[in-house]
Each structure stands twice: as C-alpha cells, then as structure tokens.
C-alpha cells in the first residue's frame, strides 16, 4: 500500500523514519499495553525524574498506571540470558505543567540489554546520532549530541566530599554550571581546593573531546575517574568510527540519578527547541534494582518535538 506523504505530520514522518532506522540495524520492535501495574513505576519513581503518574483502578480493584515510560517496562520484561536489541514507538502519559494536567507524549527509542561493553555503547551512541540526523532533516535544524560520564563526577565526589547532602548540592550546582555559587559553597563548607578547582573547571567545560581532554586528564586522579575517562574516550572513538560525521560534545553538566545511571549519559539538542529532543544513557543501576544483574543502554527521542 502506498501512502501519500502529504497526509503525514512531520512528527509522524520522523517517527516512521526512526522505526525504519532501528529496524534496519537489527533492533526488534517492543510493544506494550497502555495499562500496566502501578507497582513497577511506584518502586522506581526517581528513574522517571519524580514525574507524576496517571493512575486508575481497574474493575478488579487493581491499581493500574497509564504507562509513563517505556524503558522501565523494557527493562522489567527483558530476558537477560542473551543480549537483546529492541526499539519502541509509544505514547507515554504523565501529569505536568502549571495546572498539573494530563499529558500525552510520543517516545521513540532503542535499547541494548545484556552484555554491554564499549562496542555496544558506541553502537547505541552512534545510533542516537543517526536518529538526530533524521530529526535534523525533518525539522531542518542543527543538532548536537552532548555526552558525559557519571562515573567521573561520582569518583571525584566520593574521594573529596563524604557527606551525601554536600555531594548532592555540588551535583546540582554543576548541572546548572553555577561556578560562582560552587566556589562559595566549597569555601563555606571547607571543601578541598582540588575538588573546587575540578568542579569549577567542569562547569566551564564544553566542547569536543580534543578540546576538553586536557582538563579531564588533569583531574582524573582516582581509579574511578580514570576508568570513567578511559571509557568516555573509548566510546567517543568508537562512535567516530561508526559515524564519522557525528558531532559529540563533552558536557559534564549533564547529570543523571546515580541510583539508576552508571556510565555514559547523553542528550540530543536541536536549534529552535528550548529543551532536549533526546536523552539516554547507561542504566545498569536500574537493572540491578530490578534483580537483573546485567548491562543496559538506550535512549528515547521525543518525536513530538519535531516541528516545521
């Protein structure tokens, strides 16, 4: 059956192109029901960034949720005996906005779950770049892929800032690139100058690996930060060989909940959109919490954000 392209919305065309891309790379379609047990989401609320879930009771009195997220469900249902590659295209439902209204948003994403090493990470990040290229074409805008490694900052904080509430505050300030407040906070709490210098340098840092590598090398003083940096370099190299045209910018203001994310995290941004159009990362932490000790990495594209 032929469909005339003109009847499709830009967001629909983008979503179809993304599905085509994922399927052509050997990813299998993951489908799920709209209604799911609330318990799974309630137990992992922070994974959803504390988002409000739309709930209701079914005729048997069970509390159900209108699915707020796909990754959680993919993770919960994954068979970890083998490494699987899946993609999805679903609507998700959350409450949001000033009036706390219900919202429906399309998400299209891909995940690898199982044995995840540098090769798989590079594959997913390169695929994320290819997905951004689809959006770039669809929305006629420039795109960038920002990438970070949560292990690097976690390593720094572990070495120098023992109290969790201090580490949390430093993380927030870094995510806001708030160097002046960071300096003040370090001084007030008598934190070591090395930590203060490192975090202030990370605040100001944004660019391709070659531009920021010297800064990162300088503060990679613990085993954990060193390992994180090595992995970041390996993945960046891996992406360059899979997608030589990819523009990857290192941005350590990109932080994620460390209970779920461990390792590479990334996001896609596009001109004309005030918020990211894609976000992803390595979420072994979530798998462990679900009782599945294995690796997992993936990303979601917010296709509704595609506008012409």
């Amino acid at each position, binding site marked *: 059956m032929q469909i005339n392209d003109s009847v499709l919305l830009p967001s629909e065309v983008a979503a179809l192109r993304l599905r085509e891309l994922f399927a052509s790379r050997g990813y299998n379609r993951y489908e799920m029901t709209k209604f799911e047990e609330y318990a799974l989401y309630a137990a992992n609320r922070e994974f959803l960034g504390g988002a409000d879930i739309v709930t209701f009771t079914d005729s048997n009195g069970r509390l159900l949720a209108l699915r707020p997220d796909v990754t959680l469900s993919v993770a919960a249902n994954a068979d970890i005996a083998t490494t699987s590659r899946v993609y999805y295209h679903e609507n998700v439902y959350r409450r949001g906005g000033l009036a706390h209204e219900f919202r429906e948003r399309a998400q299209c994403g891909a995940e690898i779950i199982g044995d995840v090493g540098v090769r798989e990470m590079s594959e997913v990040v390169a695929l994320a770049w290819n997905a951004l290229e689809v959006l770039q074409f669809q929305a006629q805008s420039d795109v960038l892929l920002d990438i970070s490694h949560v292990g690097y900052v976690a390593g720094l904080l572990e070495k120098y800032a023992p109290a969790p509430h201090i580490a949390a505050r430093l993380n927030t300030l870094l995510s806001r*690139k*708030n160097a*002046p407040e960071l300096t003040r906070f370090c001084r007030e709490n008598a934190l070591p100058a090395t930590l203060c210098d490192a975090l202030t340098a990370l605040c100001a840092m*944004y*660019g391709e690996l070659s531009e920021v590598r010297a800064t990162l090398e300088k503060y990679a003083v613990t085993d954990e930060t060193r390992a994180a940096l090595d992995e970041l370099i390996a993945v960046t190299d891996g992406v360059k060989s899979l997608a030589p045209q990819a523009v990857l910018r290192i941005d350590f203001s990109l932080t994620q909940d460390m209970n779920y994310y461990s390792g590479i995290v990334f996001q896609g941004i596009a*001109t004309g*959109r005030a918020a990211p159009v894609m976000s992803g990362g390595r979420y072994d932490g979530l798998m462990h919490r679900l009782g599945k000790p294995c690796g997992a990495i993936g990303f979601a594209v917010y296709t509704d954000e595609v506008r012409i």
Partner: protein
Amino acid sequence: MINIALQKGRIGESVYEIFESHGYGCDDILSDTRRLAFENADAGVRYFWVKPSDVAIYVERGAADIGVCGLDVLMETRPDVYELLDLGVGRCRVAVAAKNGYRDTGRGVLRVATKFPHIAQAHFDTRGREIDVIKLNGSIELAPLLGLSDVIVDLVESGKTLRENGLSVVEEIADISARLIANKVAYKFLHGEITRLVMSINS
C-alpha cells in the same frame, strides 16, 4: 546574535550599563522608554525589557538566549537554566520580617504574607514550622499591620520601608544579587559568543 532579556527598571538599567561598558551597547536603549526590543547587529546583541519575574521564563523557554535576574526570581521559580555569573549588582536580602518586638511562639500555624510562596515554604520547611502562605503581589508590609499575617517574607534593601511601617527583620533567608542565566540549549549552539560575553564581563 545573542538575545538578552533584562528586567525593566533601575537594576536592569545598571546591568545594561555593565554590558555596554564591555562593548555590547545599543543606541537609544536608555532614552527610548516605550520600545521593548533593541538590536545592535554589529555587536551581535538584541535586548528585551521584560518584567523582572518573567526574565527566567523567557530564558528557560528559549525566547531569550541569556538574561539577568535576581537570585530571588531563581529561588522562587526554579527555572531549568544555567547560572553563569553573579553580577554583584542589585544587592539585597530575602528576609522574614514582622512587627517590632514580635516573637514566634511556635504555636499554631504561622501566617506568612509574601510575593515568594516557594521561598517561604522552603525556608519554613527546613525548620519544620507549619505555615499558611498568603500570596500577595505588592504592599507586603501592610499585611502584619492589618493582622492579615503574622510575618512577611520579602526583599529588604536598606530596611527603610520596614522601619517606616514599624517592622523589623526577624531572620535572613538569603543574600540576593543579579545573576546572568542562560538557556541550556542556546548556551551550546551559541557557545563561542556567550562564553566571550561572560569572560569579558567577568574580567
């Protein structure tokens, strides 16, 4: 081209003068009082005058790439933006104030009149004090005088307005100054321009 949101009024004007002294000036911007948008293509800047409490919204939503607003606005609206610089102008404090001689007995629910419901709530949450927030949009000092509230949470600059109304500061919450903020996406696409501007002003 960098789009810059500045707050209307005295503080916004002194912030503009800082930008101007670093080569980001715009003709007529201070003399033409009705126009809201001004552009200097050579310097690569376009300014908007907006209501102080709206600066953060313009920046968060990407209508402006960067902006300058008080820390009070950031604390109140918690926009998802980068906070790049403390410009050190527009200094004042957010404080709890009440009628001279007032002491909180700790009994019952404390009635707090304020323009800043989130700041007030967050402050009293840290002490575990239950409060009833009364959101007002101006003349906050009147509330305790009329018995509308027990205390107020408001900006205090010299303390003159408080004194003239028989009020005094009970407790300080935060030191406020003007902050340069940036939209998280614009910061990246205009990284060179914004970094140049920030470095120049910070030097």
